[in-house]
């Protein structure tokens, strides 16, 4: 009798559905809020690659990528009660926002750590960069040294500059999307993007 009464509660009824059945993210969030650890694990499995990809846009080391993944999901776990499907487009968008903010925090932390500096650009890299800049050939993907060099050059930018540039140039986001994601105003994003491009130009100009 009591069981029947308990089952009338939609949260309890939802929690009684076996996890093997394909549930939506919102339903999994409801179950995870009710203390269902398997539901949270399912959410983690569904979205961990997206979070790791976001993290990999900013960090090269696997440890740093994992740190952001763990930080993002830990924050999400304790903020599940704040998740509202009306405000957020989806759980994916919500966790992405948390991941970008975790990346931003990690970028700022790593800026403060002197041991995380990637070092100076070598002579070979400088010569290669100069050739690329003067000839205008942009075969960065093909060059073996391109990624290391890119990491070293971008390490000279501030965390905010780097965040905005990656969101604009890699993720292809609009100013409005970035503003919504980071909780900044649109004008702040524009100003930051302008400054970030100017900073990167100054960095590159030294190799001309």
């Amino acid at each position: 009798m009591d069981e029947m009464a308990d089952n009338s509660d939609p949260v309890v009824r939802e929690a009684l559905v076996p996890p093997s059945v394909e549930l939506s993210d919102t339903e999994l969030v409801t179950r995870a809020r009710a203390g269902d650890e398997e539901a949270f694990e399912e959410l983690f499995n569904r979205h961990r690659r997206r979070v790791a990809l976001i993290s990999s846009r900013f960090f090269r080391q696997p440890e740093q990528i994992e740190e952001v993944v763990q930080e993002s999901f830990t924050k999400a776990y304790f903020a599940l009660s704040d998740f509202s499907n009306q405000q957020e487009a989806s759980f994916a968008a919500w966790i992405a926002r948390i991941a970008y903010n975790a990346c931003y925090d990690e970028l700022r932390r790593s800026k403060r750590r002197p041991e995380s500096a990637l070092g100076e650009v070598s002579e070979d890299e400088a010569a290669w960069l100069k050739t690329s800049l003067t000839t205008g050939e942009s075969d960065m993907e093909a060059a073996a040294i391109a990624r290391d060099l890119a990491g070293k050059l971008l390490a000279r930018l501030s965390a905010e500059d780097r965040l905005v540039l990656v969101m604009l140039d890699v993720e292809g986001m609009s100013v409005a999307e970035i503003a919504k994601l980071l909780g900044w105003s649109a004008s702040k994003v524009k100003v930051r993007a302008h400054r970030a491009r100017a900073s990167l130009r100054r960095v590159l100009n030294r190799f001309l």
Partner: protein
Amino acid sequence: MTGKKIERGLNERLDSMGREIVRASAANEMEADRVTASPFLYTRLRSRINTEREGRKERENWLALVGVIWRAVPAMALVMIFAFVFFLSVSLSTRPAANFSDEALLDARDAEVEQMVFADNQSLSSDDVLGTILNEDEREASR
């Protein structure tokens, strides 16, 4: 005019190169896949969540203690103020009894107490004594 055009051209080239650099730096999908393929990733996450939960509990306990202190300190101050006011009012109302010392209570009489007692005994003036003697003489004479 030509200088500006050259500068603009250079800036465009630098911007274009900058975009390529940002994209090259962000092309790191293999590392991301390697991290997500780790079999113990969720186990480590659970462990981190548990650690964070314990940390939060500890912080909550501290906050509760701070809350108690936050309420207790003004309450204790209020009690002390009341006690001080009560002490003042009591001490002011019992001021006339200040001459009554513990020594007098315990019968430890000193010179002053003796003197006060004598003073009470000798309260009759010499005129009174003389008047009494004269009255006695007159009474005897009338007999």
